[in-house]
Structure formats: structure tokens, C-alpha cells
């Protein structure tokens, strides 16, 4: 739907920690020099290290954090399997009822009731496991991110003062809050979706092959088509989203500034002129919004259309198979249901692509901070001496010290 904004969690994550800042006085110093300190789209600014290498190290670091939670993840995946099984088995069960049980006549009634009871139990099991699964994965993700946040804080606070000259406080705060939040979203959304939707897709395909290999092969042809459409549209959607966000922040900035300077506007009797400028900005925002609405609706509806066309094709092809008694109607019924379920996970998976990319960028940024060694630190343990309080007499000797803030 055009309604859902959740496709872009990365953007929500980069929102400034203080929320909207209201400028006092004419100029505003941006709190966080975003553009300056953040290399866009994984392009490190002036870094001699190849981005690919950086990226690989970043991923390895992330995996290191995940390692202690292996068991939780494994259990979570297992739960996912059981959680979606109930939903996916539904068409097969109805198919069994249609093809095998109902034709038995009145002797089939106990089997029918048994089938119903079994399915009810499966659904309850699915309910429990689906709850456990989200709990387990979220808990693991939360633990990782909490650890990451604490480690990062410890790392930053143990740096020498020169580090704080090189890194503006604002960008460090962004690292500490926004970047870690993006990684949080990786664990709670991307990973969950990869596991859940990936498994769903695999299981649907499996069921399709179980029902009829030939029809299933035709359905497989759809995957690249769906994927391509989804990725293509996603780019346009993201583009439209970015543009409308950028215009929105311009509109907010304009409004905030004009509210602060309202008495000046009134004193100069410039209400009309400022109103005209606001209208201009507001209208641009409207235009960008409409572009976004169009892109979203076009995407969702064409995706729907493809799904419906696929189901119609399945009826056509499968109908002939039923006609030639290649398989029974129940198979066709299940197949149609599956093919309509087929699109959801693919759509979900492509939605994660953006989050995935921003996670990489965030991880790289964090990794760069983590790889900085403090310049002032404790000497090696064997030579380290602790000052005893009673020995300190308050005398400090400076012996021919030369010091400069910058090297050389």
C-alpha cells in the first residue's frame, strides 16, 4: 500500500537525535555535519583501504558479535520453520480433504474430523512457535546491539583528546545512536525476513513440486520476473522517497525559522512575501509527495496484477491437466493458493535490500571508529607502575618537555 513507510527504516534511523531543532538567531550550525562526516553509499572519503576489504572486515566483525548467540539464532530458525508450517500446510490439507477424504463418502467423516483436529493443533503449535521465534531472534539482536553500544562507548571514551579533535562530537553521537540502530534493524527485520520469507519461499516451491513438477517449473520462471520488477520499482520508490524527505526537511526548516523570526516578519510587514515563499516550498513538497504516491500505487498494483495473472495462468494450464485427468482438482486448488502466496515473501525480501545496504554502510563507519587505537594509553603491563596515593606529595616535574598538538 502507499500507506506503509516501513520500507525505509534506514531513513528513520538517521533522523537527528534531538528531533527538530529550532534555530535561535539567524544562522544555524548544523548539529551533526552529516554530509561531511558520512561517506555516502559505502564510498569512503579519501580512504586508501579498498571498500571491499573494509566491508569484508565489517561483516566479520558483525559475525563475531553474533557468535555468542548462535544457539538462540538456531532455535529461532527452528521455530520459524514450525511457525510457518501451519500456514503453508493449509492448502495441502484442504486438497487432501477435496481429493481423498470427501470422495470416500460417509466413511470419510471421521478422517475429516481427524484432519480438522490435526490442523487445529498445528495452528496452535504454529502460534506458540511464531511467538517464540520473534522473541528469540529479537532478544539475540537486542543483546548484540546493546553489547555493541557499550563497547563503542568504552572505545570512544578511552580515546585520547586528539581523537575528539578529528571526530566531531555530533558524528560520534550519530555513530552511537543511529548506526547502531540500523544494525539493530538488521537483526530484527532483515535477518528475520531473510529467514522467514526465504524459508517460506523454499517451502512453497517445495510444496508446488510435491503437487506437480511441471506446473512448479512454470512457476519458477516467475521468480526472476518478480524479482526484477521489484528491484526496478524499489529504486524508483527509494528515489521518490528521498526526494520527498529532503523537501520535507526543507519545509520544516523554513517553518521553524519563520516562526522564530515572526516578530521580525511582522515588524517589516512581510507576511505576504513569506507566505508566498512558504506556498512555494509547500507546493514542491506536494509535488514530491504525489510522485511518491504514484510510484507506490503503481508498484503495488502491478505486483498484484502479476499475481492475478499468474493465478489465471495456473488455472488455464492446470485446468487442462485436470481435464486430461493428469491430476485432480484439489491439486489445482492448492496450486492456485500457493501461487498467490508466492509473491508476498519475494516482495518482503526485496524490501530488505535497502536496509541491508544501510547496515553495511553503518557497520563500515563503526568499524572505522573501532579500528582507531588510543594514543595515550597504559604502558605495557610489565613496566606499568601505579601511583600510590600516600607517595604523591603534590610535586610535578616538567623536564625539558617539547610538545605540539599536531605531528611534526
Amino acid at each position, binding site marked *: 500500500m502507499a500507506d506503509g513507510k516501513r520500507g525505509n527504516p534506514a531513513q528513520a534511523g538517521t533522523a537527528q*537525535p534531538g528531533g527538530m531543532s529550532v534555530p535561535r538567531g539567524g544562522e544555524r550550525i548544523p548539529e551533526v555535519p552529516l554530509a561531511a562526516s558520512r561517506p555516502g553509499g559505502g564510498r569512503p572519503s579519501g580512504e586508501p583501504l579498498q571498500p571491499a576489504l573494509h566491508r569484508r572486515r565489517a561483516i566479520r566483525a558483525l559475525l563475531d558479535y553474533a557468535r555468542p548467540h548462535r544457539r538462540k539464532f538456531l532455535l529461532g530458525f527452528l521455530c520459524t520453520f514450525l511457525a510457518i508450517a501451519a500456514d503453508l500446510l493449509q492448502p495441502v490439507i484442504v486438497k487432501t480433504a477435496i481429493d481423498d477424504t470427501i470422495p470416500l463418502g460417509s466413511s470419510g467423516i471421521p478422517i475429516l474430523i481427524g484432519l480438522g483436529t490435526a490442523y*487445529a493443533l498445528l495452528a496452535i503449535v504454529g502460534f506458540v512457535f511464531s511467538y517464540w521465534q520473534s522473541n528469540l531472534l529479537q*532478544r539475540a539482536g537486542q543483546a548484540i546491539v546493546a553489547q555493541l553500544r557499550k563497547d563503542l562507548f568504552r572505545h570512544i*571514551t578511552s580515546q585520547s583528546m586528539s581523537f575528539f579533535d578529528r571526530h566531531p562530537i555530533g558524528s560520534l553521537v550519530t555513530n552511537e545512536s543511529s548506526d547502531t540502530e540500523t544494525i539493530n534493524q538488521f537483526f530484527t527485520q532483515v535477518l528475520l525476513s531473510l529467514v522467514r520469507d526465504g524459508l517460506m519461499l523454499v517451502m512453497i516451491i517445495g510444496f508446488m513440486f510435491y503437487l506437480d513438477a511441471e506446473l512448479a517449473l512454470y512457476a519458477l520462471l516467475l521468480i526472476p520476473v518478480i524479482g526484477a520488477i521489484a528491484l526496478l520499482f524499489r529504486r524508483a520508490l527509494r528515489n521518490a522517497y528521498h526526494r520527498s524527505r529532503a523537501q520535507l526537511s526543507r519545509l520544516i526548516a523554513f517553518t521553524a525559522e519563520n516562526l522564530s523570526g515572526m*516578530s521580525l516578519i*511582522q515588524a517589516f510587514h512581510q507576511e505576504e512575501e513569506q507566505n508566498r515563499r512558504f506556498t512555494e516550498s509547500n507546493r514542491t513538497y506536494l509535488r514530491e509527495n504525489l510522485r511518491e504516491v504514484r510510484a507506490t500505487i503503481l508498484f503495488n498494483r502491478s505486483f498484484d496484477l502479476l499475481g492475478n495473472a499468474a*493465478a489465471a495462468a495456473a488455472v488455464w494450464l492446470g485446468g487442462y491437466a485436470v481435464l486430461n485427468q493428469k491430476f485432480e482438482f484439489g491439486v489445482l486448488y492448492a496450486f492456485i493458493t500457493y501461487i498467490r502466496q508466492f509473491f508476498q515473501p519475494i516482495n518482503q525480501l526485496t524490501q530488505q535490500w535497502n536496509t541491508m545496504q544501510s547496515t553495511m554502510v553503518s557497520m563500515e563507519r563503526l568499524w572505522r571508529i573501532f579500528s582507531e587505537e588510543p594514543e595515550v594509553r597504559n604502558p605495557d603491563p610489565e613496566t606499568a607502575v601505579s601511583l600510590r596515593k600516600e607517595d604523591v606529595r603534590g610535586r610535578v616535574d616538567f623536564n625539558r618537555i617539547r610538545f605540539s598538538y599536531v605531528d611534526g
Partner: protein
Amino acid sequence: MRSPLGKPGLIVAQFRKYGLFYVLAALSIAAANLIHALYPAVLGDFADRVDANGLTAEAVRRSGLELLAIGAGYCVLFGVGQYINHRLGRYFEFATRQKLFRHFTGLSEAYFSKNGIGKLLSYVMNDVTTVRESIANGLNQLTNAVVLLCSSVTIMLLSGIPLSVMAVSILPLGAIPFLVVYFGPRIRRQSLKVQESLAAMTESAEEQFGGIKVTKTFAAEPIARSRFGETVDRIRENQHLLVKLSGKFQASLPLAGAMALVMAMTWGGVLVVQGRLSLGHFVELTLYLRMIANPLQQIGNVINMVQRARASLERLNRLLATRPDIADEEGARPLPKEAASIEIRGLTFTYPGAGRPALADISLDIRPGMTVGIVGRTGSGKTTLAKLLLRVYDPPRGSVFIGGQDIRETTLESLRTAIGYVPQDGFLFSTTIADNIAFHNRAESRERIEDAARLADVYDNIAGFPDGFDTKLGERGLTLSGGQRQRTSLARGLIKEAPILVLDDSVSAVDTVTESRILRNLRRTRRGKTTLMIAHRISAVMHADLIVVMDGGRIVERGTHAELLRLGGHYAALARMQGEEAVVHG
């Protein structure tokens, strides 16, 4: 929904304006769902033919084409309806923001200082968006859900599926809207808590990183770490509670669907076996159950959305109904042409909500062409006097006259056109420097802008920037120093060449050499025009025709520089404090 003023509320206005389009959107979505509701019927029909061995190649082809047509018709019609609603929603947002901004331009400083800019901004952003979403999405989902539900149930009834089977099967689904209404607000509240704890952590990081030098000198890192760690753990706790809630909610929706299917399959299956229900209808029933789970969820969503939007809408309507407290009175007249005399008679003024008057019994007679200096300590009432002249706050009736006319009976436009104003804080907007200087009339010629900059002694600075007068200020542009800002603001006041000029401590941030240059320029250009100079520094006012010394909201001394020095009172003390140099110069 009428606001207290009797003007129609925002929603009413929107529907009145676009009613026809809303009907069109509703019809379009309704048609889409009527078509969509036929989908299971086609498959049910197909199943019956299979069952009766009446399936032909022709029938297969027709079913396929029918399904394709249904799918295409649904997508197109629904897309159109959805687009209309969303588009109208964006129009609503646009129009409401327009209204809000226009409304803000009429509100006084008193209102802004009472309400805070952050709060007003959230009206413009959050409340408007919440209402828009609930209109656009709410209408889409409501139309969708109601039509699909009704048509599905109707088709099922018409095709002879027994009411009892239907009722029992749909019953578990009936829980869905209640689940949504129960969990929706709770999940929302909890996720707000997560956001808050995230903000708390950000704030803590900001604080700790900002004070890192102090932390390091006192070797207090462990304390800092444990404090920060607490904020991290709080996020985790809140997030955990959120997961518990949303996990239950997300798992319970499919459960309700599965239970509905269990009912349909067992009872319906038994009926088929007994020959009381055709196989086709059995198929239809299971497909419809899958189809109506979604609209039931949407109904719950709509209820939640409307609840949220109602509070926002009330806030917006209330805000738009506030009457500007400073406005033209009935029968207000413009100022007489070239009015330049100011007369203040027994003016006493108290800020709204303040206990003590800020000005008490002020009387002052300023003839056209005079330059009057006003000095006094911070809080002595100098700026208040300037604000009352401009009617930033309204002075009492019969206390302030310009050109012999009570300013309360004067139109705001003519009053504010007659007075040039240079405020204390040198507030500039995030546009170009030229645009800022030409603020009173953006069409001013470049020469006049440059002249004004020269008078304010800021020309050289500006010309030195790479983009000169086209340099952008503010967030994405250049930051001026305090002194440059003040002088630019001064240029903005001077270019207006108004009959009356009020300078509120306008050269406080520039050095004395520059100040004396600016003052010389002022004396030259303001010859024959009324100028009111408010200042801290004696050097800024000593050439004035009349100097007024204020203290505690009263005029305590008045006279020329020489007279006041002789008097040996406040002014003389101030002069001594600010250094002999200034006095000697005089």
C-alpha cells in the same frame, strides 16, 4: 465538526470542496471489490463442473480468462480509487499547512512565547500528517473492507451456502478487529517508549562525549560507562516488552484464520459428504475465508487511526480558531503621510502574565527629525518601549501617538511601514545576504542594497565572500560572525529609509572604531528623520538631540549628553564606568 468561530472545520471544508471526487473514489474502490468478490465464485463453479464431470476445454479457457479479467479489473479500479484518495489526502495536507502558516503570521510574539515553537511545529508536521493519513488510508481501507465483506457474504448467501456453516466459520475471524483494537494502541504506546529510551541514550552519549575532557581529567570513565550502560539496558527492556506485545499480536492473526478454516473444512466437508453442500461451494467457502481476514484487520486499523486522528484534528481546529490578539481594530485608519513625531503620554505597560509593570508612567515627546537616545541597564524597559511602538505588544489606548494619531487606532500595515526596525539579536534568514538586506522589499535594486551595506559598514565583508551578496546564509550556507550579523541587520533596517527608525542596541557587537564610522553614516543619512537609538554604550547615543535614561521601567533622567554629565546622576555614573575615553571624545 464546527469550530467555535462558526467557520467550518478542516474536515468539513475538505469534503465540501472535493466531495465529488470522494464519491468517485468510493465508487471505484467499491466496484473493484465487487469484482474481486467474484474470484472464489469462478473457482467454485470450476470445481462443480469437475465434480459433475462437465469440464470442457472451453470452460477451462473461460475460467482462466475470467480470473484474468477479475484480477485486472480489480487492480485498475482499486488503484484508481486509492490514488484519488491519497491525492486528496495530500491536497488536504497542503491546504491545512497553508492555513496554519497564514494563521501563524497573524499571531503575536506573546502567543509564540507562550506556546513554544517546537509545539507549533508539531502542529504543522505531525498533527496534519496524522489527520491526512486517517482520511486517506481510513477511507481506502474502510470502503475496501465494508464492500468486500458485504459482497462476499452476499455471494455466499446467494450461492446457497448454509448460514450456519458460514456463521461458525466466520466466528473465529470476528476476533480479528478486536485483536487489532486491543493490541494496536498498546503496541503504539510501547514503541513510543522505545523511541523515548533511544532518545535518552542519544542524549546521554551527547552529554558524555561533550564533557569528555572533564571525565578524563577526573578519571571518571567507569562512572560514565555505567551510566551510559543503564540507558542502553533501558532500551533493551522496553524493546523486549514491545516484542512480547507485537509477537502475540502477529501470531494471533493467522491463528484466527486457521481456526476459521478448521471449522469450514470439517463442518463443510461433512455437509459435502452428506450431499447437502456442493463441492464448488465448499471450495468457495474456504477461499472467501482467506479473503475476508484482511478486511477484518483493516476495520480494526481504521478504528485505531480515527481515534488517533481525532485528537490531532481537535488540536488543529482549536489552533486555527484562536483569534490573533493584535489586529486592526474596527475603523482603523492608516497613519497620516510622513508622520514622524512620537508622543507617549503616561504609558504604563505590564506583560501578559507578569506581576510587575515593565514600563511605568512614561511620557516622552519626540518631534519629527529628532534623534533620541535611550540608555539604561538590561531590563530597564528600553526594548519593551520599541516593541510597543511597533505594536509587537499592544500598548494601552491613548498612550502612544504617532503623527498625532493613537497607534491603537492605526492600521498595522501603515504603522509598520512607517517604522524601520533593527532588532537586538540580528536575526537573519537562511537566504542570500542580498535577500536579507532587501527584506522590506525583495525587489530592491542591487545598488540600493550595496549602498545600505556600505552605510552599515558591512560592504567590504560581504564583497569579500566568494558569492558576494548572493552568498547563502544559514544551515547550508555561511555563518556570519556576531558583528557581521548585526551590521547586516542594520543594513536591512536602513535600506527602508523609513520616517521613523528604531535601533535596538544595534551596534553592540562591533568594535568602537567601526561603531563611530557607522554612527557618522547614520547622522548623515538620518538627517531630518526621526531616529530612536536604544543602547548600552554611551558612545552610541552621546550625539543625540535628547538622551533618556531609564531605570526599572521609568524615565529617571533626560537631557543632552552635556546636560546629563553635569547632572551627575545615573548617566554620568554610566559614562565614568564606560571609560573616560568616550567622554573625552564627546
